[in-house]
């Protein structure tokens, strides 16, 4: 079976099957990551943009690197840009949402969504990558392009904050 990195090489040559295989391998993990990062908003746009960048930047991909790390780096950067662009009156916290959309979400049982939405962005990323994507500290550090110690520290602060939120409930 071809490695992810070999598939990227074939993607550079315009091989659609290679992209289809990469999508199959990462669609669940990537879409969930984006969903949790943005509390379920603009998932499709961000998902598409991530893969468009993969296709566009594939010729410059260094095959000695892990594809999964590169893919999530792209997604992290896009999600961060998305948060920066988010309108001030466009709440990220699902508790602040009003109307049928909010009701729909609450009914869908977004307890974890509410918790995550209350974390600062940098801490949320670490929790998603470590808790949901099961990445090691080292892998998370590579994705987030920061030292391993920073991942550990963000995880610590995130857990402290989450513990406070859990106790408040």
């Amino acid at each position, binding site marked *: *079976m*071809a*490695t992810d*990195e*070999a*598939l990227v090489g*074939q*993607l550079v*040559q*315009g*091989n*659609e*099957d*290679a*992209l*289809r*295989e990469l*999508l*199959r*391998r990462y*669609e*669940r993990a*990537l*879409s*969930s990551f984006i*969903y*949790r990062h943005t509390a*379920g908003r603009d*998932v*499709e746009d961000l998902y*598409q943009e991530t*893969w*468009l960048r993969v*296709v566009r930047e594939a010729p410059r991909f260094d095959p000695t690197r*892990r*594809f*999964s790390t590169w893919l999530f780096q792209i997604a992290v950067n896009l999600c961060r840009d998305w948060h920066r662009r988010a309108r001030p009156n466009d709440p990220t916290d699902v508790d602040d949402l009003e109307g049928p959309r909010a009701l729909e979400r609450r009914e*869908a*049982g*977004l*307890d*974890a*969504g509410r*918790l*995550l939405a209350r974390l600062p962005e940098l801490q949320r990323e670490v*929790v998603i990558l*470590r*808790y*949901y*994507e*099961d990445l090691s500290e080292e892998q998370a550090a590579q994705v987030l392009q920061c030292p391993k110690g920073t991942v*550990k520290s963000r*995880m*610590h602060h995130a*857990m*402290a904050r*989450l*513990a406070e939120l*859990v*106790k408040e409930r």
Partner: protein
Amino acid sequence: MSHTDNTPNVATPGGARVLREHAQECAECGTQVPIDRLAGLLDSTAVSIDAAALSQRVLQRVRPELERRAGAAWWRRVAAALLVALVPLPLVVAYDAYLLQMVYGLVSALLPSTVAAYLVLSYAAFLVLLFATTYAAIPLVLSRPPRLAGGGATT
């Protein structure tokens, strides 16, 4: 793992383990964070996304770009293959011409020169046809789509 369904995407089995590992290393979190309760809440999320449908739309969107790349890659391969095949061609032609001259000399000693010329020219025409077919086959061989092959484990 199925990638075509639309089932809620809950945390990986490693999720709670990650929290416990951290709590073991960190005395503060170990005493203050209710790990099981927190893990239960984090696992309660329902990510209802039809990831396969998203992927289909990605494929549709990037298809023109992939087709353009595939076309460019095909032409690059054809050009490279023709170049490699053309490099030894002058030598092959010169050697064949030398052989044909020798054969003509031999045959014309045994048969009338007209018949000898006819035989040698027929053979030369056959060789030209063979060359043409060989070179024409290069694009046909290259047009086969590459297989998804490669060694090693997936990441």
